[in-house]
Every structure is written in C-alpha cells, then in structure tokens.
C-alpha cells in the first residue's frame, strides 16, 4: 500500500529507507492508523528522520492526497513568485484586471491586503478545481477511536484543537523555516553558524611529541609509548566582500553579517568589505562605499591563505563586468575591467568562493552569473550551499 507515495517521497530527494517503509506497513497492518491524519503523523515520524525534510514531506503529502502542486524540485517558491507577480501587476492594474478576469474598477476599490487575499483565493480555487484524481478514498472521520474524544479520568489532554485535516496541516507548510533549500533567514541562523564551525583547521594527530614520548616511556619502565599531537595550524583569516548596492541584496546583508559576526571569535581575523554589483579598483570598508576605500591591488600584501568570500547576486549588465569603464557609478572611472580584477583576486587567494542568494536554478538565466561562475566557484546562499561552500574552502590542496 502507498508504494507510489513512498516513491514520490524518494523522488523529491528525501532519504527514505525501505526498512522504514516496511515499518509503516507494520503500523498499518496492526490497525494503528485509522485516519488520514494518523497516516500523516505516523508516516512522518517513521519515514522522515529530520525536520529539514518536514516541509517537503508536507508538500508531497498534499500533492499525493489532495492533488496539490508537486513541490518543484528546483524549489521555486509559490509565494515569492506570487509576490513578484503582484508587485509587477500593481503597477499596471489593467493587466491585473485582465489576468483575473474582472473589471478594472473592482480592482481599484480593493486595498493591497484585500487584493492579495483575493488573489490567493483565486489561486486556491485553482488548486481545488485542478484535482488530479489521486485522492485517497474515504479520508478520515470514520475512526471509532477518535483521539480527541478519549479522556481517561484525571488526565488532561491539552494541545491544539485538531479541526484541520492532515492535508490542510500539510498545506500550511509549518516546517518551511527548517527546510534546507531557499535563501538563508534569521530563523536558520543557528544551523548556519554550525556550518561555519567547520571553518576550523584540524589536522590528523600526526606530529610526534618527543618530550612527552620520552617521559611516558620512562614511566612505563622502558616500554615505548609514542605520543602524537595534532599538527599545529593557525586559525583562519577571512575576508568577506558584500555587494550592498542593489535593493536585491538588501534582505541578505544583515543575515550574512550577523552570521559572520557571531562566528568572529573562531577566526583569527575577519575583514568585511563592500562593493556595488562587481569589484573594480577598490573595495570599501564602510557600508556607504565612500569614506574608506581599499585598493584591490593591496590584496597581494595580505596572507594568500586568507579565505575570500564574496556575497552577491552577480547580476548586472554585461558591460559592467567586461568593459574598461564599466562602473555604473558615473563619477567612478576605472582602469581595468572588473573581470580582470575578479581574476586577480582569484589568483591572489588560494581559496575563494562566491555565495549567491539567488536560487541556483535561476542562475543560467543571467549571463554575468555565467561569467563570474567561471572565475569563482559559486554556491547558493542557503544551508546546503553554505555547507558545500565551506567544505570547498576547507578542502586540502
């Protein structure tokens, strides 16, 4: 039973094992699962082993049992899409009215909040009509032993009233914050900091400590005992270069800065620089990019072991990157094209990465991302991306 459901879970990339699926079958055959709600909870606790996947489980569940949209494996968020669409349409009420199939005058009477509500309503209608027909027949309600009804003497069942169906619960997507993909948010700060903890050098214990070995051997009465130490390594130096120019970067700057500030103690040195869109002759130490320039040339004087991390969306007009006087800032004329400067930085430091808050599957739409990716290894600014990026920075050789 529910083999399809199992494979759907597997397909969207949640690690599930056949053993746990068999365990779920056992639970089913023992009559532990009476309703769809039970199936939702039991299925989740038996199959899904990390809260990171709860959100995507919710989506698959909603799809399988209610025909809701399958989670796009590439993770394009419905809400963010809706928001951009709305923002776009708000500028053009006529187009919006056409799209929703109502008169423009109706739209103009609605406040933005009402409009969003209305829009959501329409979208919801859409899902309901667009029913794929793979519903499970006989959902819920038939169980003779309702959980909420059972009160043994002297005991209190607290908790939330459960009027919602499992599908609705699943569609609420309560676990979105724990999901691994999608841009970094404050809610994930703790997890993200843990990823950064990997930025500590730790070699194998392969240095022979001679003094200690002699002392131990004497104590053992001549029986040789070798004492090894971890080979000594210095803590890391990190340079963080943040694109704080365009509005597109705004939501991510405080997150990134807080992230690295909290991790500051584990670095030997953390420098933060700012730039707009891409790097020309200078980076700035102040966020207003005005008072304290730092010449890119001067990077050669820094320790080449420094880990250089760029945070930016890498999206701009191609000429900003390639032409000699590329900067969109008129007052700022440069000698070398930005692309040269980027290559220079890459060659100066042994380990560099570029963290991009844009979702990875949108990268191939932007030409400059392509170009920059060919220079810097680029990672998504998400928990997964951060993890991969850090392991790239810490890789040997």
């Amino acid at each position: 039973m529910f083999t399809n459901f199992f494979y759907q879970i597997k397909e969207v990339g949640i690690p599930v094992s056949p053993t746990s699926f068999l365990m779920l079958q056992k639970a089913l055959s023992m009559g532990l699962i009476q309703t769809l709600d039970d199936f939702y909870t039991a299925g989740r606790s038996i199959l899904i082993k990390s809260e990171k996947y709860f959100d995507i489980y919710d989506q698959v569940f909603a799809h399988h049992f209610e025909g809701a949209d399958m989670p796009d494996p590439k993770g394009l968020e419905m809400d963010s899409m809706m928001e951009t669409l709305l923002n776009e349409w708000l500028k053009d009420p006529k187009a919006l009215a056409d799209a929703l199939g109502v008169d423009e005058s109706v739209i103009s009477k609605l406040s933005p909040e009402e409009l969003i509500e209305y829009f959501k309503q329409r979208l919801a209608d859409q899902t309901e009509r667009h029913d794929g027909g793979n519903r499970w027949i006989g959902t819920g309600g038939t169980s003779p032993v309702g959980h909420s009804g059972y009160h043994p003497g002297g005991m209190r069942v607290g908790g939330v009233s459960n009027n919602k169906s499992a599908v609705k619960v699943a569609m609420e997507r309560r676990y979105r914050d724990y999901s691994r993909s999608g841009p970094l948010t404050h809610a994930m700060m703790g997890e993200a900091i843990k990823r950064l903890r990997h930025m500590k050098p730790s070699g194998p214990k392969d240095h022979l400590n001679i003094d200690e070995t002699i002392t131990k051997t004497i104590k053992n009465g001549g029986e040789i005992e070798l004492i090894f130490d971890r080979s000594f390594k210095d803590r890391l130096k990190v340079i963080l270069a943040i694109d704080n120019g365009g509005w597109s970067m705004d939501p991510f700057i405080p997150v990134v800065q807080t992230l690295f500030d909290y991790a500051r103690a584990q670095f030997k040195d953390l420098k933060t620089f700012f730039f707009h869109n891409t790097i020309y002759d200078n980076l700035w130490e102040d966020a207003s990019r005005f008072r304290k320039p730092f010449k890119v040339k001067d990077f050669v004087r820094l320790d080449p072991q420094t880990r250089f991390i760029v945070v930016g969306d890498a999206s701009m007009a191609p000429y900003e990157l390639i032409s000699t006087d590329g900067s969109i800032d008129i007052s700022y004329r440069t000698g070398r094209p930005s692309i040269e400067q980027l290559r220079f930085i890459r060659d100066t430091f042994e380990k560099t990465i570029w963290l991009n808050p844009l979702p990875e599957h949108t990268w191939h739409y932007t030409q400059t991302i392509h170009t920059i990716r060919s220079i810097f290894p680029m990672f998504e600014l998400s928990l997964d991306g951060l993890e991969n990026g850090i392991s790239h920075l810490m890789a040997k050789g």
Partner: protein
Amino acid sequence: MSQQFTGSTRYILDEELAKIVNISMILEMPLLLKGEPGTGKTMLAHAIANSLNMALIVLNVKSSMKLVDALYQYDTLTRLNDSRFGDSGRDVSVIENYIKMGKIGQAFSSDTRCVLLIDEIDKADTDFQDDMLDVLDQMEFDIIEIDKTIKAKHRPVIIITSNAKKDLSDPFLGRCNFHHIAFPDPKMMQKIIHAHFPDIQRDLMENAIGTFFKLRELNDIEKKPATRELINWIRALQADPDFKPKKLVKGEVPYPGILFKKSPDYSRAVNHTRRRLY
C-alpha cells in the same frame, strides 16, 4: 495497545505528539525527539512515566561516555579492597558480585516495563550512538567478564532526545521514529503556563507571554529565551511585590537577565526595550 499515553497534569501534550508516542510504543521503536531547548523534550519522558505509572530511568549522555558505562560497570577497586580486608561479606571469587548495572542495564533487568530516557544523545560520538542502537535493537548485551548475556525482561519505552549540535548518523536515524517539537505558539504557551501556575492572574499571564514572544522575535538573538526561561521569569515577576502587569504593556521588561543569558543578547534586548520606552 492497552496503555495509551494522553498527557499528564504538568505536561501539555499536543495531539500529534501523543499519536507519535503511542505508535512508537506499540511498534517498539525508540522515539527520537529533536527541537529547540525548552520545548519539553526531556519533560515528555517524565510525563510518560508519570501517567503510565512506569519507572523512569534517565541516561544523561556525556561526551566522554563509552557504551560500556551505560551497560554495566565492573567494580575492580571494591573487589581488590574486599580481597585485602575481607569484611564485606561478599564472595570475592564470584565476579558477578562486583558487576553494577548501568542505566541501560537497569532498564533491561527491571521487573516491570519502564521508560528509558536517553538525554542529549548528540553529545556523544557517532560510534557510541550506533553501538548503543545495536544494543537497543537486540535488547540484549554481554557482560564479558562473566560471560553472561543480559536480556531485557520487558522492552522499555525508549525516548531519545537530541539538541542537534551534530547530525546523527543514518543507521541511527533508520532505527528510530522521529519527531521535531516546534516551539509552542502563544495559545499553547498559555496552557503550559497555566499548568505550571494554576492560579496565576490572567493579565499577568497574557502580558508576560505577549512580551515574551515579542522579545523572541528580536533579530540577531543567538540564544532565544525558551519555556524554562519564561517560567522562571514569571516566577520572578510574581515574587516582586512592586511589579504590576501593566508595566509590561508599557514595554518595560524587568529582570531581563532571566530571559537572556548571553551578554550580546542581553544588551540587545535591553537596548531594544529602552528604545521603546522613550
């Protein structure tokens, strides 16, 4: 099936979790609980033991712990002493007299079914975790010194908690049921507070919870205050004769040190409340 877990007087159980606990008990699988500190992971085991009238055995995992410590201990020192002074009445030649059961051993040899809480499993290294799950899977272990196998008389109800400092290994996860306890929402929190302070004034409770959730939403807080902090804070507010619940509405936050325990968090919170006051 005869025993179902429905919650206890001090512990407010949400329905979803109750289902999961019951299913795990019947399937005889350990239940792994993750969640922020203060979401009541440890309290759950206490509540289960309490309401089902079972004994609770707690194994507090430490980073230096070896599996054998959790199973049994061979007390060689006492044996040596006994053999030198011979005044204890124990027979020195019987090694079994010097075997002491560890927490898992106690749970296995208990005459009635009990609840075994393995607290903060993530502190130990992965080998410990995997080996322990082997033991819990097979419900038996060997005492090497006396060549004897200890089998569980009754399968204990096993609750494992993790603060997720490290990711647990896949084979480990494969053998557990899993639940992540989300932080309670304000409504749930009211119930929890009510369970702890049955005769708390209504306005104090509402204002305190309101302020608490506002403070939790502050940006850039590393360690957010949890339920435990809120309960202690309310206790402090109640103990203060000068305190009026109205002060909270105005944005005053007395005793911030109870809620925020890291100094950057503390100063951030204090700054924030000051800004709101003036």
